[in-house]
């Protein structure tokens, strides 16, 4: 009997022992947000988590983008004072979460530190070839930002979540600034619990006006089905990235909002693969897989069928001119190694559908599905002939030329089709010099046409956001740039 008592006591202790995190008390009106990726580096603005901080309403950039056009945020106005210099007038009366004022010196400091970060913020990468991409200095009630070469889209670049303004106290570790009590947004970041989540409180002195919700409890849930379940069970108010397979299970009062995103899902055909180096074979591949209705079947209508790389999130792309189409060769059982990654549940399904279509057309297909880091490690090594990738075209600036240069120029850093055409490179270089947004867009469409004509890429769809929103919740931002989500107007009931 004694033994049993000991066993029970030990079990009791163990069971009472280790729990983590809090359930969140919905009665207080705090918002419960389910994140789709973990805040492992403390929501630092340098890197992937920069967007997380803007989406939770912690940090803010000088300007924000609406339909590709910059509008005032922490800066109220801007002018190009020289070919390589822009002056930004700062909003008066703004304070950081630690109580210190938003001064021109603080802004210049934040920008200069970001420009010196490694790797260079994505929005500034194309300026970085000539040394420091930007230098900023305080100038009266504003800051002057200079670039090494004339830059027509500098205000757009400064909308990047990586170029947000933090209080000077945030830079104790210059390689990883901490936005804890250092942002300007509607919510004060109080605590980051490793990769588990973050706790935020309303900013009592927010410059846009009173903040509706008293606070935010964000927690990371790796599994998309788990996020959907938590939303349906009323444990979350906002759930990021609901998988397509779970969308139909979410019914009123919960809903899934879907704005078109500048993100395409496409098959990249390796131009140097032994099989697909032949343009006729590439055309045959395109002929087999392009007719598949991926948007209607696998995405169940929650995506837009792709006419090209650019979709409804970039309305100007609808004016694309037709491009030439190569005649297909007849497949003779060539072996194609098709690969994708498992983090987005829809991609393996596309792989299955594509593989079957290719087999029907007369190819032999090996399908590989890897976890994304294992997949990325093998990208560009020639291990696969064709890869299915979901790729953002935003690069934080809304500038299509930068995206095309990184994905389809010979020296591009993310050129998965290993496409290299001097004429395309020349077009991209010329467009990069242009100050006129319309010219840049026309050049982008021309490059898109060349890439599609070469069958370097076969676009399947452009994605829509799938943000799960709980019943009675209002004021969630529907931002096609995915930079904002929780705002000062977000409230429950």
């Amino acid at each position, binding site marked *: 009997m004694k033994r049993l008592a000991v066993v029970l006591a030990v*079990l009791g202790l163990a*069971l009472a*022992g*280790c*729990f*983590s*995190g*809090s*359930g969140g008390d919905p009665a207080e009106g705090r918002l419960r947000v389910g994140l789709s990726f973990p805040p*492992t*580096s403390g929501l630092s603005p340098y*890197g*992937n988590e920069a967007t997380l901080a803007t989406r939770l309403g912690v940090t803010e950039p000088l300007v924000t983008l609406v339909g590709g056009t910059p509008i005032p945020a922490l800066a109220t106005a801007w002018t190009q004072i020289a070919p390589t210099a822009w002056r930004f007038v700062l909003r008066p009366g703004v304070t950081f979460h630690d109580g210190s004022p938003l001064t021109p010196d603080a802004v210049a400091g934040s920008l200069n530190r970001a420009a010196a970060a*490694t*790797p260079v913020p*994505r929005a500034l990468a194309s300026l970085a070839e000539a040394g420091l991409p930007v230098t900023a200095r305080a100038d009266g009630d504003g800051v002057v930002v200079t670039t090494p070469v004339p830059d027509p889209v500098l205000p757009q670049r400064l909308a990047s979540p990586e170029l947000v303004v933090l209080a000077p106290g945030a830079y104790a570790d210059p*390689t990883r600034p901490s936005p804890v009590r250092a942002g300007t947004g509607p919510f004060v970041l109080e605590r980051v619990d*490793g*990769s588990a989540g973050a706790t935020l409180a309303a900013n009592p002195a927010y410059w846009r006006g009173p903040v509706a919700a008293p606070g935010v409890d964000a927690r990371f849930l*790796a*599994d998309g*089905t*788990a*996020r959907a*379940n*938590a939303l349906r*069970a*009323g*444990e979350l108010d906002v759930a990021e990235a609901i*998988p397509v*397979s*779970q969308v*139909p*299970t979410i019914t009123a009062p919960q809903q899934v909002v879907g704005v078109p995103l500048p993100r395409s899902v496409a098959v990249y055909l390796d131009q140097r693969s032994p099989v697909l180096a032949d343009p006729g074979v590439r055309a045959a591949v395109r002929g087999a897989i392009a007719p598949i209705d991926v948007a209607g*079947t*696998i995405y169940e209508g929650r995506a837009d069928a792709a006419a090209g790389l650019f979709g409804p999130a970039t309305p100007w792309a609808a004016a694309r001119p037709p491009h030439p189409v190569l005649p297909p060769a007849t497949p003779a059982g060539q072996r194609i190694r098709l690969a994708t*990654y498992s983090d987005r549940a829809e991609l*393996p*399904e596309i*792989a*299955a559908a594509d*593989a*079957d279509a290719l*087999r029907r057309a007369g190819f032999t297909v*090996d*399908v*590989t*599905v*890897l*976890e*994304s*880091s*294992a997949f*990325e*490690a093998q990208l560009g090594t020639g291990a696969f002939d064709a890869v299915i990738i979901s*790729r*953002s075209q935003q690069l934080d600036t809304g500038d299509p030329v930068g995206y095309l240069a990184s994905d389809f120029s010979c020296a*591009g*850093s*993310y050129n998965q089709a290993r496409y290299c055409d001097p004429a395309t490179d020349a077009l991209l270089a010329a467009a990069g010099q242009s100050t006129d947004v319309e010219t840049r867009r026309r050049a982008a469409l021309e490059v898109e046409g060349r890439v599609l004509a070469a069958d370097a890429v076969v676009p399947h769809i452009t994605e829509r956001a799938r943000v799960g929103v709980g019943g009675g919740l209002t004021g969630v931002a529907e931002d096609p740039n995915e930079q904002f989500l929780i705002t000062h107007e977000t409230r429950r009931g």
Partner: protein
Amino acid sequence: MSTARRFLPLVTGALAVLVLTVVVAALPWLWDEDPAASVLRVRYPERGIDPDALDALRAELDLPADPVTGALGWLGGALTGDLGTSWVSRAPVGPSVAGALGVSLTLALSAVVVAAVAALALLAPGVWRAARRGASDTGRGGAVVASVLGAVPEIVLGAVLVAVVAVGWGLLPSTGFAGPAHLVLPALALGLPAGGLLARMLSSAAESALAEGWVRTWRSWGTPPGTVALGVARRAVATASPQIALLVVGLLGSAVAVEQLFGIPGVGSAALDAVLAQDLPVAQAAVMLLVVLGLVLGAVGVLAHRALLGPARSGSELPAGVPLPSGHARSWAPWAAASALALVVLTGLPRDGATTERRLAPPSWSAPMGTDAVGRDLWARIAHGALLTVGTAVAVTAVCLVIGLLVGVGGRSARAGAADVVNALPPVVVGLVIAAVAGPGLLGAAIAVIAVGWVPLAVHARTLATEARASGYVRAAVLAGATPWRIARRHVLPAVVGPVTRHGLARVPHAALGIAALSFLGLGAAPDSPEWGAVLADSLAYVERAPWTILAPTVGLALLAVVVALVRESRASS
């Protein structure tokens, strides 16, 4: 000689730990990839690799020159209590991994409580009946239910529980780990299948116990059946206690899929994420803490075995394993299950399993089992995948059985050793390492399942061998001058082979499930392969919208379990 033997398990255990540290430290080299590039990709996804950033990161991470240096450096730090700093989050590793381990321990212990209750409920009626009648057969009904329960994929059970209990009825929270209410559903999901396995294990031990002479003696004295049943239970639990310890340890690291479904920050997920991100300090710490805990719990299991056997073992007075009476009542269940399986496979083989636009179609005349998420006919997929699935599972189990018997009967000591080290490893981490060497695929998955799967059989064999060696006639054989080899072959092996084989058979569906668990991470069969694990992995997201997509492979596994559950080995004692 005896001192050397006493320390042998310690030495093999320490050696296993050392090898393991080097293997984890060698992951970047196995992947043939710069760890700095991996960390860079995790920190800055979809960006490609910038050489300057790579150099900066290399300097920051202070990467070791080769795996052995890295492993020894890490071990040196670990021995002084410094587990290092995470390469990804830059936070100290110790507290976060220890916290995750605590979470997993809590979950595993609750799952074991569930498993024990389930096993008890399954076995109690049979043992009671047998004790009253004086039979040594605990009945078939319990065995069938136990086998089917043991063949239910944890993740499928978890998904159904969430959909019904948490989302449908709103009774319990669906995600998180903030209090005891969060524990119920994951513990059920993990514990019920484990309870099925445990019941199979205990029924084997209970039947051996029921056949022992003392039961007849007690009964002839007129001992009440309750007392006899308790005695049998104690005897069976004694035999199974190392297995129960193994179960706890196994649940610690292998619950990754369930942890993710319920959003539980456990150590299995931590180890997996760290290995994927090549965050070596975290991976090392997670694997090592699991192994140390595995060794401790393994030792506790052995001690419990001794304590429960009491003076019988030390006095070498344990009765010999008595051969089971042959000629059991024939059961129709395995034949029915085998026929059903064969019928489904044979009629399904001519069907076309290509993708169509009719996705997630419910069962109908044209597709009697429905279609999956890309419109493939599920009947065709189940039929095409049957041979592959069953064949792989049987082959994996056979290899596990041979290794388990060799190690279990060959090893002399009942103490914890290399087997406990291996058992504590999360199978997904083993799968990742093997995939790193051999590439992802069914063969790699099978090897990964074998690498961990022989351990329970070896421990079972070890326990039974210890008991057999403690019986009177083995002592007599020793006194008569029999060689150790002759004793092992003539006296120990016959007492061990039967129950361990039956245990192994009960694990055939488990082997298929192990491969399925790796399929969820893309480490199993190719995703468009009709292997049932891959079919399950493809369909899990649709458990609520299209239950038939899950039903077909799950029922297939359950039928397989029924078939193997009732294959009775004749315990030929030569």
